[in-house]
């Protein structure tokens, strides 16, 4: 476990402006990540090569490209196909969550999330991801 790489850079794609604001405080100020917050899939995909996130958080229901579509685009990129992708969704039904996991998501966090513990949750997901790889 000691040789697990620290999670530093994460990207969050979310269309809801107010949630973007609170999430940025939760992830950057509270959890101390280097966070890139994007308003849609196009913005996220345009900056992924420069920012090089180690993990991506995705909202599910978004206008234009939705979460699952963005996941597929990221998984199609050689450099990022292995990185864990986590959905953050207001769709809280068990069958919805199961469907999202089947798409290849590492984990699913439901809204409303607790901004004080969001970072810890993501670190746990990160560690589990690396442990399962070893």
């Amino acid at each position, binding site marked *: 476990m000691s040789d697990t790489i620290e999670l530093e850079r994460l990207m969050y794609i979310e269309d*809801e402006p*107010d949630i973007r604001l609170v999430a940025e*405080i939760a992830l950057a100020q*509270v959890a101390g990540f280097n966070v890139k917050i994007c308003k849609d899939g196009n913005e996220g995909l345009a900056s992924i090569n420069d920012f090089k996130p180690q993990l991506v958080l995705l909202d599910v229901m978004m*206008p234009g490209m939705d979460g699952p579509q963005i996941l597929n685009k990221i998984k199609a990129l050689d450099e990022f196909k292995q990185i864990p992708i986590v959905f953050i969704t*207001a769709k*809280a039904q068990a069958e919805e969550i199961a469907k999202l996991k089947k798409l290849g998501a590492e984990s699913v966090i439901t*809204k*409303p999330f607790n901004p*004080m513990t969001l970072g810890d949750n993501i670190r746990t997901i990160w560690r589990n991801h690396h442990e399962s790889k070893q």
Partner: protein
Amino acid sequence: MSSKDAVNDLLSRTKAIVDTIVDGVITISDHGLIETVNPAAENIFGYSKEELIGKNVSMLMPAPYQHEHDGYLRNYLNTGNKKIIGIGREVTGRRSDGSTFPLELAISEMEVNGQRMFTGIVRDISQRKDTEEKLRELLARTKAILDTIVDGVITISDRGLIETVNPAAEKIFGYKLDELAGKNVSMLMPNPYRAEHDQYLNNYLSTGEKKIIGIGREVTGLRKNGSTFPLELAISEMEVNGLRMFTGIVRDISERKETEDQLRSAMRRVHEQQIKDEFIATVSHELRTPLTSIKASLELIIGGAIDKKSSQADMLINIAHKNSDRLLLLINDILDISKIESEKMQFNRQDIRVKPFLETAIFDNQAYAKKHQVKFVLKQCPDSLYINVDPDRLMQVMSNLMSNAAKFSHHDSIVEISADNINGSVRIAVCDKGRGIPKDFQNRVFDKFTQADTSDKREINGTGLGLHISKAIVEQHDGTLSFVSTPGKGSEFYIDLSMTEGSAQQGHHSE
């Protein structure tokens, strides 16, 4: 020609006829001995002339007739009691090879030179009998089929009169054949088809224009007990002995229709359940979204993540406040939808004058005008237009239409409100010159949780339920809510409602 020549000529002519006809001709003496046979008779029985002449004719009959023949002949000669002479009948013949066959026999008596003689004309009817047998068998099979098939078979004449019905048709319609035969087939149809049937038939016979003949279709049948039922009918046309006839094959499909109806209603229930499930999932999603902003903002402040006196704290409180409003709007709209769908929404209808109602609408919705920097203007409204509505509910519709018009208008533009008498109905219109509704979205405008650009939901603070609710409210008033919209040029929404007596009596119409 001498008389001898004439006799010879007649004889040779007669011989030629007898030699060439297909029927066998055999003459016998009064002792039953064969005197002459023609070639056809040789052929029929398989004997040569030489083998027959002088023999007892009974050799051409199988037992027991063979042994009885002499007795018959003697009896006739003694008593004059004819059994067969002068009467054609069907008997059995015996060929030289011992085989038997049916033949038609006609015997005549004559006297030649004082001697009684008998001429038998025989015709081999094996083939005819065979054909008859086959026909009988075919008829029996056809009858068995018609008697046992589940479909009703009815034949009618070209005048529409019933000629035959099979047992299934009797059972389907509840009549016996004798109650149907000779009656017009239209008795098996309810009105208006009954009244129209003769005309259809006449029309077909005179013009050849087919409405149903040759084409199966679903029609309604009438049973003897007066009940009606769905039936599948196929009609074909045929000609029998130069007469046109029609055969109708009818199948009672009541049970099938019932199963289909049950299936349809089961599918509808499943579909309704799916819609309900989707609605619940969407409602859950829509409620959780503002709740996420509210809860996270407050938790960040309460959790001490930021300084409570900082501008960031103000921003978070503002987010929580704004999203609380959004949540409240959403909850109200969802409650309205739930009331509408369970038909529990109360309407306190009363006669109201349209003009002051619209003036109030403009006054009450000034906040939207101010927020979106537009101006609401009452363009026209005849003074004494009256409608019978629940004013609070209709005001809810006006607020929805006016806030939409304001949201999607350009700054400093005018939103026109008007009312008019259109063909005896009252039309209230809300017209903006804003961005309009995209063409591909226009057929979904009244659906639940829809906005042309889903990001509008966030920017413009709508729930995506307003127009759905408005339409339902207007429809509960027996009115219609419609629109015309040109992308880039603006939208016009129309509420059409019945005009109440008050308006008509006062005779006010649009100028």
